């Protein structure tokens, strides 16, 4: 990268004081982002820092008027109504989940929505020619008639970029472009982005892979908790390396956001040994690679990992093999091997899994609080084949009071509750099964600070009662605040293990972003 001069190229994009509110949450708080023409600008931040929201504001997914602040693109105030509108201006966003139709050919996908032709239908001959040219520009050597489903994810990514080029892109936004690519494909993609830069295309890249960011970015903007922390210029006076970026991403104080607790840790209660699981659709791709993990009585163990590291996949596959294809591994409880091939078996063995997505996996939103509370432990209130409604009501009332669930009555629909209270209902549902091992996946996602504190209290009480608790979280401060021990996960494998005393955000982040061997090498 050439050394940047004191006055860089003109500003192509200037997002000024962008504030985006959702009911109860400020997702973006006066965020500023300046992107210069012809540069690769990386946006870094923890999960939930607001990166994707910012890009949605930019691309018109959240239309003008639904946020505060101003976007100036190419010297003009931009008020995008929708994606179509921002694309017309030359802003193309490529999401991590690619928007290609697997059953259609490369050509058909390239021109989907922008078909080439006149009044009488599509001019396929011309389209095909143009497809060949576009593919050449992105360096993809494939027959344009190939169906998308028959090419790998890396090549699909290139098709997406070719599609963007067809739309005469001026600003290309790539959201986690290399998250699902292998090293060779990633390297090719990064080369391509450099090549596009040479041809005057400006790129914004969102990535968790900091080594790649370090390699390719000219500028880096760091977001944290919906605010701009800083913008760094690579090649300036300060050396920008991974360490420096991590410090920006996690550098916040860990004050008394977590309740005090004196752990009382006993013998190993639950063990996962050599746990290997394959992706449910993609044969040969492992989402868990020989994971070994131990939780003791009364212990809270955290699992740290970035998106795509396989945290939820691990938890769900352990919980009654609810995810992926089981390959090998064994679970132990109190040192004895246990079989949990179905969710019911897992529940019977005293396992509980609170999913990260309470609306689609945790609750039936049509149910009342009463019915939700007993959903997993229904057996416990069945007398002679019949549900004991009185007992059901009592149980629901008991948990409503114990967890301080704010609801007019247990007969209220769970869809009328706030996120924090819904989460408490999910916790109640699993506490009612009286589990020995609790796996909590993002237990405080989308919940305000006050409710978070209450949830931490509940977690602590469960540990104090001698249960084994596993907490998966994207928020490092949360993990550091409540865990006794933390495992780091990267690409489906455990890369490191820290005790609460020795863990700090920087070392965790390092273990979350690189493989074990790199770790040992350094």
């Amino acid at each position, binding site marked *: 990268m050439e050394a940047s001069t004191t006055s860089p190229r003109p500003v192509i994009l200037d997002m000024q004081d962008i504030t985006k509110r959702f009911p109860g949450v400020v997702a973006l708080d006066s965020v500023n982002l300046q992107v210069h023409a012809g540069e690769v600008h990386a946006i870094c931040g923890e*999960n939930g820092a607001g990166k994707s929201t910012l890009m949605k504001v930019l691309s018109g997914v959240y239309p003008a008027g639904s946020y505060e602040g101003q976007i100036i693109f190419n010297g003009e105030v931009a008020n995008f109504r929708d994606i179509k509108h921002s694309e017309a201006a030359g802003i193309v966003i490529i999401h991590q*989940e690619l928007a290609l139709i697997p059953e259609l050919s490369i050509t058909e996908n390239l021109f989907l929505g922008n078909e080439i032709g006149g009044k009488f239908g599509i001019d396929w001959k011309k389209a095909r020619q143009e497809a060949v040219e576009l593919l050449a520009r992105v360096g993809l050597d494939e027959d344009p008639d190939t169906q998308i489903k028959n090419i790998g994810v890396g090549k699909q990514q290139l098709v997406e970029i070719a599609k963007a080029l067809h739309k005469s892109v001026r600003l290309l936004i790539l959201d986690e472009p290399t998250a699902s690519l292998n090293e060779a494909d990633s390297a090719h993609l990064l080369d391509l982005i450099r090549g596009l830069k040479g041809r005057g295309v400006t790129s914004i890249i969102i990535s968790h892979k900091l080594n790649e960011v370090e390699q390719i970015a000219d500028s880096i903007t760091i977001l944290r908790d919906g605010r701009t922390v800083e913008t760094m210029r690579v090649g300036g006076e300060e050396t920008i390396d991974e360490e420096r970026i991590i410090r920006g991403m996690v550098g916040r104080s860990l004050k008394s956001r977590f309740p005090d607790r004196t752990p009382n840790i006993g013998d190993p209660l639950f063990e996962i040994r050599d746990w290997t699981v394959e992706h449910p659709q993609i044969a040969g791709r492992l989402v868990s690679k020989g994971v070994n993990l131990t939780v003791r009585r009364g212990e809270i163990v955290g699992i740290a990992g970035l998106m795509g590291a396989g945290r939820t996949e691990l938890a769900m596959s352990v919980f009654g093999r609810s995810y992926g294809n089981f390959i090998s591994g064994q679970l132990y409880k109190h040192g004895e091997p246990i079989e949990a091939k179905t969710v019911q078996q897992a529940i019977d063995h005293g396992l509980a899994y609170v999913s990260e997505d309470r609306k689609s996996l945790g*609750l039936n939103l*049509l149910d*009342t609080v009463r019915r939700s509370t007993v959903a997993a432990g229904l057996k416990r209130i069945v007398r002679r084949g*019949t549900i004991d409604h*009185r007992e059901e009501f*009592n149980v629901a009332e008991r948990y409503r009071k114990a967890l301080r669930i704010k609801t007019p009555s247990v007969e209220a629909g769970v869809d009328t509750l706030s996120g924090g209270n819904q989460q408490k209902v999910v916790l109640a549902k699993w506490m009612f099964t009286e589990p020995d091992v609790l796996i909590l996946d993002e237990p405080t996602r989308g919940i305000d600070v006050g409710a978070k504190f209450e949830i931490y209290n509940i977690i602590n009480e469960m540990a104090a009662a001698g249960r084994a608790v596993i907490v998966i979280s994207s928020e490092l401060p949360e993990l550091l605040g409540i865990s006794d021990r933390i495992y780091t996960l990267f690409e489906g494998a455990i890369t490191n293990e820290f005790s609460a005393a020795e863990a700090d955000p920087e070392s965790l982040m390092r273990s979350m972003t690189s493989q074990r061997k790199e770790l040992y090498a350094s």
Partner: protein
Amino acid sequence: MSFLKDAKKILGGSSSGGGGRQAGMLIALVAIVILFQILTSGTTLSPENLINLTSRYSYILILAIGMVMVIIAGHIDLSVGSVAALTGIVVALSMRDWNFPWWAAILLGLVVGAIIGAWQGFWVAYVGIPAFIVTLAGMMLFRGMNQWIGRSTAVTVPEDYQWISDGYLPEVGPNTGYNNLTLLIGLVITLIVVIREVMNRRTNVKLGAEVAPIWVVVVRLALFGVVIMGAAMLFASGRVGTSIPASGLILGVLAVLYTFITKNTPFGRHVYAVGGNSRAASLSGVNIKRVNFFVMMNMSILAALAGMIFVARSNASGPQDGLNWELDAIASVFIGGAAVSGGIGTVAGALIGGLVMAVLSNGLVLLGVGSDQVQVIKGLVLLAAVAFDVYNKNRGRFSLIGLLTKKPANTGDDQPTGASTEAQKPQPAGNAG
């Protein structure tokens, strides 16, 4: 205000899970009955017409009971008419050619229904083919088998078998001018309703739950008592030797049984769970496949029963039996407040919906309206009932119906933070590419 609120509870608006919608439909049903009673100058509620109405529509209502469970679980069954027809011909032939006694024929019919149900349940639950496809195939398959086995002819059934449709209760006891057993049944039902209400109320008071004011309860019980006893007296006061028909009694027993199953058993709870959110149900330990299998199987058994009752009523099994029954059954369920997306609906609602359709058709026929126009009107009523719902829900106004049929509103309910958009659940990476 509070008076109005309480008044709404008379028809059960306070109970959870579809009570409000049922109350609305119950009012509509009563209105329709009164309307036709006036238009037909009293024929609608005459004993003969009521008996006819019961034996003419009971099998549709039996189908509606099974269908509402299928729809709550998030499926559909298009094959019920064909299943009924196939069962009918098998039963008729078993009695004609193999000399099966009537009771053995009925057992055989139920077994046929169970086998067909297991077949459809297998494809839906264990292979994962949408019920729409499986039962569409079944619709053709079983219709064809009916015509194949029966060589597209009508096969008559013996007289003793016909009892399951139009059999009447015997005349016992003193000559009151009424059928005494029918009166007794009415009395027993009224008593059970009163006792249950009192017991529930006592439990709720003990638990400190909200209870309706006492006058509401009294009015409600008086209303139910008048309706039940009135119906019993009408059924009992027909021609000597007639009473509530056997098909009506079967329907009554099934209505109670399935209300109990859906409300009070783990299986019933699981049906709602699977329809409401199958992934959440699965992660709560519900065996989704088993639930789907039994829901589909149950539907076919009920269809077999309906087919047998129909054959008894028409004295013969024919190649066109059960044509379009699925449509009447499905319409009943949706008029009765079930949600197309599953998870919502009640047996009582489906029965009320079925009765609305039945009274409507019957009344129009009594008025001499042609069957072509009856179809048109039934279609419009179905559309209007559901449209009324949707309209009320969209306007966000108070709606008895909308209040209880609402699905979680996803519109405008965006992810509250960037967190939920960024870190996603394990998405099959293959879904986009």
